[in-house]
């Protein structure tokens, strides 16, 4: 389905590019203009930065001062609001295993696919309950072949001297390119909005909106592109003096055999 829509988009882009290509008349005019500019402008090129037009030295000083202010402001703001991934920052822990092996999750998904005629949009299985989302009728004609498993772990600590404490762990399976609203199986009232799409080179793109009653006033919205199987911090923030870290792991499940 994605490939089909990509092909449609590519065809439309190619048609637009062809329709907007320079025509012969404009090419002639532009070619004359370029050559004339070059012929008249051997000196113009050398004078493209005339002395009078150069920025006055005080402008450089002002620019540097402004840059310093921006850096300082960013540094202060950094711990007062949600921040996106701090790539290269230390992970809270070593990558955790999935609560159920991916092969088992894939088998569970397969069972639900059989029940719902291949229309499963997402699957969130917790220790005590399992929620299933089914695609709308309009989209059910072409079930997605690929599903992405997403694991989200929220941890916190009061200071850097103490170990991280797990607040909430959510694992879900989602069909690619479906914007799904998934209730958390780990914590009542928490909701995850997830969209995932495997791209080339073993990378997976994920859009995430994360709300949890553990932090009612906070709202995470992040877009990430991350390698399969690697645990990555996607948001780090401070709330009431407690440092929080949200980590994410994604994995692509093998294509489903329907029927």
């Amino acid at each position, binding site marked *: 389905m994605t490939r089909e829509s990509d092909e449609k988009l590519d*065809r439309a882009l190619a048609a*637009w590019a062809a329709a907007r290509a320079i025509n012969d008349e404009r090419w002639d005019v532009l070619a004359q203009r370029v*050559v004339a500019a070059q012929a008249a402008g051997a000196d113009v090129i050398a004078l493209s930065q005339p002395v009078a037009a150069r920025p006055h030295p005080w402008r450089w000083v002002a620019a540097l001062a402004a840059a310093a202010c921006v850096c300082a402001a960013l540094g202060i703001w950094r711990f007062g609001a949600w921040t996106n991934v701090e790539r290269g920052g230390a992970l809270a822990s070593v990558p955790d295993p999935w609560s159920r092996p991916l092969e088992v999750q894939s088998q569970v998904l397969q069972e639900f696919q059989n029940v719902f005629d291949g229309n499963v949009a997402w699957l969130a299985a917790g220790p005590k309950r399992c929620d299933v989302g089914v695609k709308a009728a309009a989209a059910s004609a072409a079930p997605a072949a690929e599903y992405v498993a997403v694991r989200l772990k929220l941890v916190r600590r009061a200071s850097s001297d103490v170990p991280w404490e797990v607040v909430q762990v959510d694992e879900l399976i989602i069909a690619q390119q479906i914007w799904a609203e998934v209730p958390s199986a780990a914590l009542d009232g928490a909701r995850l909005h997830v969209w995932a799409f495997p791209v080339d080179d073993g990378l997976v793109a994920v859009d995430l909106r994360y709300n949890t009653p553990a932090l009612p006033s906070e709202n995470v919205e992040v877009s990430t592109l991350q390698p399969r199987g690697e645990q990555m911090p996607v948001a780090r923030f401070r709330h009431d003096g407690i440092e929080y870290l949200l980590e994410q792991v994604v994995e692509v499940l093998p294509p489903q055999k329907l029927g």
Partner: protein
Amino acid sequence: MAGLDRSSDLFPHRHPTSGWLAFATSCWAPELSSRDEHSRDAPTALRADGEFERLVVSHLERVRNLAYRIVLCEATADDVAQEVFLRARASAATFRGDAALSTWLYRVTVNEAKSQLRKKRRSRESPLPAEEGIEHRGRDDGAGRESPSTELLQDMERALGQLSPKLRTAIVLTAIEQLSPSEAAAIDGCSTATMYWRIHQARKKLKHALRMHFES
């Protein structure tokens, strides 16, 4: 102009067979050359009589089309194209021989187009409007393919105009110019992973903007 004819032999492409020009040509990577038989022109020869005109004849169409696809304005695209060729001439001596000329021109064009967009933003002009009155023109008019509606083409231009320059450049370089993500990343000066991400985001936004056309 009588001296410039892209369809005539007034500026026959000359492949060097000996001397320093042949050596320099042999050092250039073959990347992109399959898409552009003129990509092995020697920029260091631009100062010689006729070489500049030959470069213009060979590459103006591609440079100007790429510029338009990024800036989405005819007049600005013309300005970008002119500036690209003048820069090419001025900086021919600094051209590094480890990249094909077409790659080099792509990079200069992308940078100049983005520079023009930044200038326009700084001058507080309104966003570049989508050009009206799209009609099929140019050499490749899509013959043999299913012809999309004029409405789709206009909506496409509008949707492209709503993308950021980075996302627009990514989708133009890969989906239209048919470069690989790694080639596009090298031209745009970002990592391959970043380029994948930009392509993905651009596709997502375009599909959303054009969903009325694609859902039917």
